[in-house]
């Protein structure tokens, strides 16, 4: 593992093995935090934005480090971003059309 710290960008720009382990620990900790937030009644009022931020953080970490977007061509980030933007638009449009926004669903 000692050599890992010097291999921040090897084999086509992928992260070191130690980085993968650190990201996995962070992902596990965020998941524990999410579940903890779910069970704390005191923060019911802000649970939606808190959980969305935590979920987005996990999404970004997996995409950047495990899927190597941080080290790969920006073209791939654009391809994923286009898909995500359209998906978000689909979700908001359907929820708006069905009156779900503001009804308490999200």
């Amino acid at each position: 593992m000692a050599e890992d710290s010097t291999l921040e960008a090897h084999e086509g720009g992928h992260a070191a093995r130690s980085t993968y382990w650190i990201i996995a620990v962070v992902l596990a900790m965020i998941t524990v935090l999410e579940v903890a937030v779910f069970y704390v009644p005191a923060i019911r009022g802000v649970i939606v934005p808190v959980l969305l931020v935590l979920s987005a953080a996990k999404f970004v970490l997996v995409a950047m480090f495990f899927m190597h977007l941080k080290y790969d061509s920006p073209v791939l980030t654009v391809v994923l971003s286009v898909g995500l933007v359209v998906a978000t638009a689909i979700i908001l449009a359907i929820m708006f059309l069905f009156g779900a926004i503001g009804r308490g669903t999200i």
Partner: protein
Amino acid sequence: MTTDAHATSFGLPHRKLAMWVFIGSECMFFGSLIATYLAYEDRSLVGPMPAEILNIPLTSVSTFVLLMSSLAMVLFLDGVQRNARTAARAWNAAVIGLGVLFLAGQVYEFRHFYHEGLTLQQNLFGATFFVLTGFHGAHVTVGVIWMTALLVLQFLGRLGPERSLDVEVAGLYWHFVDVVWIVIFTLIYLIQ
């Protein structure tokens, strides 16, 4: 075949770019299913309702299992790139094992819901929940089959560093299945 073979005008391998385009289209597919679930989840006329039946502790463990399978996947790719055959086989076996464990949890959950009276036809919650999580489970199943095929190639000695792109493309698919579950876990299970 090398990892640089058949590069696109972007300088990227065709298969890698194709997988990312596929992932982009899958975002829209799962976005539609998630939107349908959110639009209908509290419009059921009869129970069971989400708050009555969703098992957060079980799903939290399933989420952890899938996250750790993503770690195993990158270490599998790392092993193939370094030509560390034993490590690569072990990590691929871990990916398969964790994937099967996740699917077992989903089968248990579906059976439990069925016995509690929640079916595909019971109400809008059941219809949208089973379609969304069922499609995700189908994706995990495809991933497990894909990884198993790669494990066979490993034992045949046909998955060396020169074919690491094969593993990288499979890994992109596996990680995407993981990030979809990250979203599902939050929107369907935790935000009720």
